């Protein structure tokens, strides 16, 4: 309280100090990094991520963009072929592109009468019917169907391999602009997909979302403030608090090096929705007490005397609940948690310092809050409170049924993730993904990394045969479209060097008998590789095997990126790896889908951990605040109810447990506990005042705190509902869940809590 006195006495000094501090903190805001790599959300020591980075180090290319060119009729026309060839060329010139594999430039290995040829599929002008026919035969003859040409011959597929040094986002942007101009310049339908494209479109959409959210939440907050206080200061002061807390938090992030990322971009909406509560409470009290004071400084002092403690208390619990996100196991969530906690505390400080300073400067408001304004609401809640207590037995039963209902929904929750389903149905990203999934080998790539026993190991026929068997094994799964790797090349070379005999489309044996002489198969393979390397386009071999031949990669093309699909293939692949890879040192799976799979698995354990931790921390704070252990339980039991509702809803509505939704529980706990604290605090006062009359205490609490809690919850719920405007399903669902959580914690505070308190009458109430 000393500080409030100082503030009220020296309001101008206070403002000066705050302004200076704001400038200091914002001075480094230019350093705020923007992080768009979703992989950065992951802990650095995650094995699947390390392996993924290693693939980027050992092989020249890591990520792939798929492009499909769909013709009205057939693709084998001079026009379409020529356009494809020119487009291939154009793509190859994009900065960051390692190579383009297209139906016109793909290396075709064939036997000829005198020997072999390794040539691009299209060798001359496609307007020559002979050339066109040759191209068609080459493409349809081999395993290019389903990879570079669709089965119905209506579409060509192109694979754009990105350099490991490429900035994926930039390459994706440029390629999308190229596909756009090709689409408008020709009669072809042009599609592009693949992880880099999806991530780019997602980032672009989220970037737009953030602007929308920010604008909407500001409008909502201004509207709520204007409606509640109908005064300029009533809008300006709480609004300044939240805006400054956002700015300070950005400044803080710049100082400590937290980037602006997919997680932290929700920060402004979170902070504004949560941080506004303190200001509302203070101004509410200020107007409420207005009538009793003629001196403005006395009015401010009395307002703050009543609210300093609750504001500190509720802010601390919120901050602590967010800090618990740090234990969820995701770097970006940890950063979000720390930043929101910081922002909430800044909002607290500004509410306790800036608002009283301003109020000490501004003249006394002319009017007080009209007590009659929301009279109906006060009456309704008081009446509701009365009925609750009168029928507490029935209410308990109903609550039990409700809880049971939602608990039964929880097992229905799917831990699922399917990036593409987040896009709206008609979004180009979704159509591209679906077309490429239907007509080609698939838009998702899981990479198997095969480590041999030392340099040269990948020339051993025994290991190559295992890789070939691995491919056959994987292809049995209907979602696996294709598997590429060194083994196919060796088989093809073996065939063409044996006069094209289909029987010879195989890996050479470990000992090959030539003219009666036993020759190690390894030498045969080595010479095939040398021959291929001399005659093919650059980088073809390097893409599949390291120069030392100690490590190879097999790319598994998968038709859908649904978590359950990837999980199934992962399990199926690992079964083979465990039992049948006898000649490899180690075989591991990685790639974006595998990383997402790991993320999803972590979501479950991380979420559980962070929920329990934040419940526990909030419990501790409530225990300290009320100096009573049982008060702690009364604080968190209603919260638990709200969480059960949330998870039950997810189960019933088919909302996947995803990274985005992890934040929901922490928000529910951090914000919801405020309602419990307010309610218990007020209830105890009335309980003591009425000598333990629970009915009277409930009615009085409902009439005062109950209304405030309900309005507060509605305001925050509407604030978070702005997130539902997102075009992405997962984000929109997150907005929905948070809004519901606000309502359900509020309902828990206004029903669960009074019934519990009146039935059990805990001792701390009368202390």
């Amino acid at each position, binding site marked *: 309280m000393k500080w409030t006195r100082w503030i009220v006495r020296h309001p101008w000094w206070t403002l000066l100090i705050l302004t200076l501090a704001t400038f200091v903190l914002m001075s480094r805001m230019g350093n705020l990094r923007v992080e768009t790599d979703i992989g950065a959300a992951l802990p650095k020591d995650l094995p699947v991520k390390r392996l993924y980075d290693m693939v980027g180090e050992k092989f020249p290319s890591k990520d792939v963009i798929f492009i499909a060119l769909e013709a009205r009729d057939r693709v084998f026309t001079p026009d379409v072929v020529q356009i494809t060839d020119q487009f291939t060329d154009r793509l190859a*010139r994009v900065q960051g*592109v390692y190579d383009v594999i297209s139906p016109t430039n793909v290396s075709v290995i064939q036997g000829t009468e005198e020997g072999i040829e390794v040539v691009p599929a299209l060798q001359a002008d496609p307007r020559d019917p002979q050339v066109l026919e040759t191209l068609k035969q080459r493409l349809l003859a081999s395993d290019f169907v389903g990879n570079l040409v669709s089965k119905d011959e209506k579409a060509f597929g192109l694979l754009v391999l990105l350099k490991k040094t490429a900035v994926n986002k930039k390459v994706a942007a440029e390629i999308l602009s190229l596909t756009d101009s090709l689409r408008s310049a020709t009669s072809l339908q042009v599609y592009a997909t693949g992880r880099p494209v999806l991530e780019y479109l997602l980032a672009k959409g989220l970037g737009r979302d953030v602007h929308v959210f920010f604008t909407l939440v500001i409008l909502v907050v201004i509207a709520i403030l204007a409606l509640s206080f109908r005064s300029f200061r009533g809008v300006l002061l709480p609004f300044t608090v939240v805006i400054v807390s956002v700015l300070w938090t950005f400044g803080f992030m710049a100082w400590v090096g937290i980037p602006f990322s997919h997680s932290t971009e929700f920060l402004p909406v979170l902070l504004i929705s949560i941080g506004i509560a303190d200001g509302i409470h203070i101004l509410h009290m200020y107007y409420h007490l207005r009538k009793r004071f003629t001196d403005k400084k006395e009015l401010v002092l009395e307002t703050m005397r009543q609210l300093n403690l609750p504001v500190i208390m509720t802010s601390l619990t919120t901050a602590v609940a967010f800090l618990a996100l740090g234990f969820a196991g995701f770097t970006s969530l940890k950063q979000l948690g720390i930043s929101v906690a910081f922002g909430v505390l800044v909002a607290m400080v500004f509410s306790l310092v800036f608002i009283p300073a301003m109020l000490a400067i501004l003249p006394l408001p002319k009017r007080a809050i009209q007590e009659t304004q929301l009279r109906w609401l006060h009456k309704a809640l008081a009446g509701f409170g009365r009925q609750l207590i009168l029928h507490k037995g029935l209410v308990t039963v109903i609550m039990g049924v409700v809880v049971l209902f939602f608990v039964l929904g929880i097992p229905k929750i799917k831990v699922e993730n399917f990036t593409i389903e987040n896009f709206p149905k008609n979004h180009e990203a979704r159509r591209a993904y679906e077309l490429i999934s239907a007509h080609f080998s698939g838009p998702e790539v899981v990479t198997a990394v095969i480590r041999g026993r030392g340099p040269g190991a990948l020339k051993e026929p025994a290991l190559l045969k295992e890789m070939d068997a691995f491919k056959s094994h994987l292809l049995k799964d209907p979602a696996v479209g294709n598997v590429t790797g060194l083994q196919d090349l060796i088989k093809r070379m073996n065939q063409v060097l044996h006069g094209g005999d289909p029987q010879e489309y195989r890996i050479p044996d470990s000992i*090959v008998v030539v003219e009666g002489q036993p020759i190690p198969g390894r*030498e*045969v393979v080595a*010479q095939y590789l040398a021959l291929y390397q001399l005659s093919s386009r650059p980088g073809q071999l390097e893409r599949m095997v390291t120069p030392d031949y100690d490590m190879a990669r097999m790319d598994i093309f998968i038709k859908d990126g649904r978590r359950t699909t990837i999980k199934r293939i992962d399990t199926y692949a690992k079964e083979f790896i465990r039992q049948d890879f006898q000649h490899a040192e180690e075989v591991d799976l990685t790639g974006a889908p595998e990383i997402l799979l790991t993320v999803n698995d972590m979501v479950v354990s991380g979420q559980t951990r962070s929920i329990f931790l934040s419940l526990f921390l909030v419990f501790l704070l409530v225990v300290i605040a009320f100096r009573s252990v049982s008060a702690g339980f009364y604080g968190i039991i209603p919260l638990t109810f709200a969480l059960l509702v949330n998870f039950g809803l997810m189960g019933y509505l088919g909302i996947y447990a995803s990274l985005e939704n992890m934040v929901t529980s922490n928000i529910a706990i951090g914000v919801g506990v405020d309602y419990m604290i307010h309610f218990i605090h007020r209830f105890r006062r009335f309980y003591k005042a009425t000598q333990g009359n629970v009915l009277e205490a409930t009615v009085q609490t409902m009439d005062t705190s109950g209304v405030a809690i309900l309005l507060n919850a509605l305001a925050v719920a509407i604030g978070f509902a702005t997130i539902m405007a997102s075009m992405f399903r997962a984000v929109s669902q997150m907005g929905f869940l948070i809004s519901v959580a606000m309502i359900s914690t509020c309902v828990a505070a206004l029903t669960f809590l009074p019934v519990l308190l009146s039935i059990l009458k805990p001792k701390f109430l009368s202390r």
Partner: protein
Amino acid sequence: MQGMIWLLGFLIGASPDSVAQQIMWRVYNRPSFQDMHAQITMTLIDPNGTQRVRKMETWSKKDPKTGETKMLIKFMEPADLRGTAFLIYQHKDREDDMWFYLPALRKTKRLAASGKSGAFMGSDFSNYDIGGGEYEDWNYRLLREEDLDGIPCWVIEALPKSPDVEKKSGYSKEIRWVNKENDLVVRTDHYDRSEMLYKRTVVKDAVQIQGIWFERVIEATDLDSGHRTVMEFTDIRVNQGLPDDLFSIRALGR
């Protein structure tokens, strides 16, 4: 005929570009050996210093009438490639003829390939770097004159004359440093098809043999990955009258 063209260019006048054309014409038409034998050691060096060595023996011979070259390359190292051989007849006006011999299969076959931009045996040299270039492929422009490691040089920009050249070479541009004293290209910066500098070849050592300058040690560096290849010629023997028979297809497997 080509001398005439050169003379004509000289007479018409010395715009900087025609100066560049003349310089590069001299570079491509430096006197050369009638035939040559050498051992080539190619050392491939990873960014982290790991080295792999490839050794081969080469013979080449120029047809004095057509100016076309025949070349035989036999691998000695690594051991599993020992005896693998390639025979190449370079042609000025059509695709080169190529044959190979794989000792493991005891087979000699003809190879039709058009991958000149391909990396030569996993090195940082492309097949184009090693022997695919033609004077006529490029347009030249003199950028400046400067000293490179104390050697006075012309700095010349070479741009592909046609999209085909860009495709077959894999380069959208080259900057070449030509030693003014002996017309040797001592350094080339290669730009990839997205016009980014990505490779540099540098002549580390040149020797004069029978009055003719020859690049004995060349290093190519992939500037993206830091991977390097050093190609060194040893046991160089020239103009010793290599028999035509050495370059016959039958002789490949011997």
